């Protein structure tokens, strides 16, 4: 079962876990990314290209499902306005085999950073508003999976 969503609403991690686990799996790996309040950040806004973001997440999910033996895969990305502590992204990958669940989860979170059409705008307590620049590190991590 593949579940992909791009949503402005808060991600309910508990409910997603229940949905994902309904089948029961030998091994489940997960990743939760949250908004960090570094440097006085008060709001993170994620702008997205609706069609391309959905398509990008769907392609990623299917690439993982082709590559590893997965019983279930959940990929949820939040967009628009978020506060520090909010969950931005949730990846759940389950497999009969521990190494496949772990590898798929890491692949998905690495590739998410570069393959998905999202732009981050940060608003700080002192009023500054900046668009985040693309970082080299993410492209390098994602490239490890290119082969």
């Amino acid at each position, binding site marked *: 079962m593949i579940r992909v969503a791009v949503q402005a609403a808060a991600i309910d991690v508990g409910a997603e876990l229940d949905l994902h686990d309904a089948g029961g799996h030998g091994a489940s790996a997960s990743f939760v990314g949250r908004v960090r309040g570094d440097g006085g950040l008060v709001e993170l806004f994620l702008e997205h*290209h609706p069609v391309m973001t959905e398509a990008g997440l769907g392609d990623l999910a299917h690439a993982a499902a082709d590559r590893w033996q997965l019983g279930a895969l959940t990929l949820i990305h939040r967009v628009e306005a978020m506060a520090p502590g909010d969950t931005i992204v949730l990846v759940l990958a389950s497999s009969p085999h521990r190494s496949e669940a772990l590898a798929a989860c890491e692949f998905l979170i690495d590739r998410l950073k*570069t393959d998905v*059409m*999202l732009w981050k705008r940060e608003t700080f307590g002192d009023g500054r508003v900046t668009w985040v*620049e*693309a970082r080299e590190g993410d492209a390098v991590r994602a490239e490890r999976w290119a082969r």
Partner: protein
Amino acid sequence: MALTISYFAWVREQMGVAEEVVELPVELADLTALLAWLAARDGRGALAFAEPQRIRAAIDGVMMGPRAPLVGAREIALFPPVTGG
């Protein structure tokens, strides 16, 4: 030829619109020519497309390089490199 151009992130802010329908001169061959045309069109375009190497583009939902032809395009999206995930 008439097509829709959509802008994202700081490109959208500098252009002041999220989307517009434009009538392009037929001699615009590729994305590089489109960015030069937008930069020459008005002050907002001059600001947003002053450094074309900072811009990425998708034609009808598919990422394209600077020499991609415009012929047959229905929607072109212009934006900075993604920072998401």
